[in-house]
């Protein structure tokens, strides 16, 4: 009788053959249980720490969600592993972190936030053909240098300002053209100056008259003279592009001095679509419009994320859904090509039609590294909340223009 407790020679041979076959399998199939490293670069210390923190949160939430729901399906459930780098709010540190991530074997990098950091970091990554998805960095040269590894998911400066202009005209036309005169207020950095220049050429072409352009530094010691000039010029529209502190000062001064133009139409403003501003200064914030990065307000996943963040007592800033979506975009690319190989990821991104994100972008389509589906939205503070008024496909409120009361 055969002793079933003792393995037969044939059984041993079979087992041996099977083991040999497993050992001979290609490494990446065995790596089904390994992880794919993704570099997350954000400035969490220094002047930009606040934004960097939001960016990191968004990325972390996406990574956690992907891992919790079975990992990267295209790689047999491999987990995403975050390799975090602090860009310390300057390009030198950003470059150093890219080097560290490269040495750590990341498959791709997401983030950067500030344009100077993104410019330096994408370039450093390009040396290794390391795919880099820029989160915010609006400066257009970021995607105009012909770097094959650089992708930007969000809209750049040109797209945002074009959108802002078109929708301003639409807004004005829709209300029967009540606005003609404009005063531009801008911070003297990259956004503000670039915006002012563009507005100065484009607005007159569309029938607006710019009464004055007021530049201010950041930090500005005093905004009362800016308010004074606006009061004296009495424009129909004020178009401000400033950082948080200065705009809050201006808005509150205007409110108290009862300076009420027909509309305040901000572009890439640090406060105009910021929940903290609306919460802390509801009267000053009421009716203010902005053209800025935003989440898709009809997307249930976005709203769920918003609730999670607000439950922690934090503000749901655009950096969170944006970085969340960027990580998901990357995961989708990896899944589609079933590989964490850098060249394949770049190829996958180039042919990406990713739709499962929570930004108001529609289908993804990269041309020379820029996502052509990307667009900002127009928001307006209504009833102590921030509503989307344009584009119609994502809007959850109608614009109130001219602003009354």
């Amino acid at each position, binding site marked *: 009788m055969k002793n079933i407790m003792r393995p037969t020679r044939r059984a041993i041979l079979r087992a041996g053959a099977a083991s040999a076959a497993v050992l001979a399998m290609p490494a990446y199939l065995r790596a089904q249980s390994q992880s794919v490293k993704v570099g997350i670069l954000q400035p969490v210390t220094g002047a930009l720490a606040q934004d960097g923190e939001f960016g990191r949160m968004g990325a972390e939430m996406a990574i956690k969600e992907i891992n919790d729901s079975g990992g990267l399906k295209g790689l047999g459930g491999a987990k995403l592993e975050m390799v975090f780098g602090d860009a310390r709010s300057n390009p030198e540190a950003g470059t150093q972190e890219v080097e560290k991530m490269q040495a750590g074997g990341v498959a791709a990098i997401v983030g950067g936030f500030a344009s100077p950091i993104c410019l330096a970091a994408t370039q*450093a990554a390009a040396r290794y053909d390391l795919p880099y998805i820029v989160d915010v960095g609006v400066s257009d040269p970021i995607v105009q240098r012909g770097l094959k590894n650089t992708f930007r998911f969000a809209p750049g400066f040109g797209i945002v300002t074009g959108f802002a202009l078109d929708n301003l005209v639409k807004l004005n036309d829709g209300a029967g053209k009540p606005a003609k005169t404009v005063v531009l207020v801008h911070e003297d950095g*990259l956004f503000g100056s*670039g915006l002012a220049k563009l507005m100065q050429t484009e607005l007159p072409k569309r029938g607006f008259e710019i009464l004055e352009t007021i530049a201010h530094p950041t930090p500005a010691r005093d905004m009362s003279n800016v308010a004074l000039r606006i009061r004296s010029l009495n424009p129909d529209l004020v178009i401000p592009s400033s950082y948080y502190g200065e705009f809050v000062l201006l808005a509150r001064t205007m409110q108290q001095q009862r300076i009420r133009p027909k509309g305040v139409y901000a572009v890439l403003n640090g406060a105009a679509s910021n929940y903290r501003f609306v919460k802390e200064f509801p009267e000053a914030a009421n009716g203010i419009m902005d053209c800025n990065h935003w989440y898709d307000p009809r997307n249930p996943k976005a709203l769920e994320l918003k609730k999670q963040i607000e439950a922690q007592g934090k503000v749901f800033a655009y950096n969170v859904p944006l970085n969340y979506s960027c990580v998901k975009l990357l995961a989708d690319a990896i899944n589609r090509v079933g590989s964490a190989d850098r060249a394949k990821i770049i190829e996958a991104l180039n042919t990406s039609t990713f739709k499962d994100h929570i930004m108001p972008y529609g289908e993804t389509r990269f041309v020379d590294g820029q996502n052509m589906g990307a667009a900002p939205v127009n928001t307006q503070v209504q009833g102590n909340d921030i509503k989307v008024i344009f584009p119609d496909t994502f809007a959850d409120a109608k614009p109130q223009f001219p602003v009354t009361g």
Partner: protein
Amino acid sequence: MTFRDIVPTVVLIALLAFVPAFITANTVLNFLVFTLIISLAAQGWNILGGFGGQFSFGHAAFFGTGAYAAALLQARLGINPWIAFAIGTVAGAAVGWVIGYLSFRSGLRGSYFALVTLAFAEVLRILANAATFTGGAAGVLIKLDVRPSNFQFESRSAFFWIALALVGAVLVLTRWIECSRFGAQLVAVRENEAAAKALGVDTLRVKLGAITVSGAVTAAAGGLYAQYFLYVDANIAYGTWISVEAILAPIVGGLGTVFGPLVGAVALHGLGEITKLAAGSVPGIDLMVFGGLLVAAVAFAPEGIIGLLRRSARSKGTARHA
């Protein structure tokens, strides 16, 4: 200056030149290149501040000029980057001379001189941020075109060697100053300007010479920065960060010594990397340490690391004889 005077420098540079042979990790090379750039800027400051005793709080004025000149000349006028770099260095010297002439002619010293240099740097920053020809707030982007003739290199080692060569050249220059009559006059001005004048030293000429050389060296650091990172804007070029770095390194390393700025830059940045690893995500901790270090350095080691080394060498020497 004889050959013997510069033997330590030559030996050091030769040894350091072999570093890329052993260290191929780009993370380390990147760190070293940046540290060498800072070291170069600090060496410039040291000539005026350490040897000449004139503390400038606005060396960003020279750094930024070198950076912008190099960047603008190649990006806008298509001039060869190597030549643009050289012109940037000369521009830095010129700015140094102008600031020096205005300040020293009016007899500004000590705190007043520190303040006026601060003001000049700030004015340049505001202008660079507003002017169209400097690209305004958008800054200047140098096109990525990796060719040695274009002063852009595939490998970081090449940048390392160039930075090292520049640092080495300025080390030799500083040593030359130290051993020369000009250097002696400069130190005399530092120790007691009135007495130096009484002894017949043309203090204005000496100080002007120092600030011109100082400006040129720091401008070279700026040009190198532009070439390495390929992007400058007003805050990068003329911001207070580089003025502070240029002061901290020689203080910590050893004011008025040849190797002080280099030692100080390496020590400070090395410490920065370590604190980053240790403190992780708490913002500003490393800079807080820097500030504390500066106070401590002045309090306990006013002659910097080099001074400490010298003192310990001396005391060891006396112990042997005891």
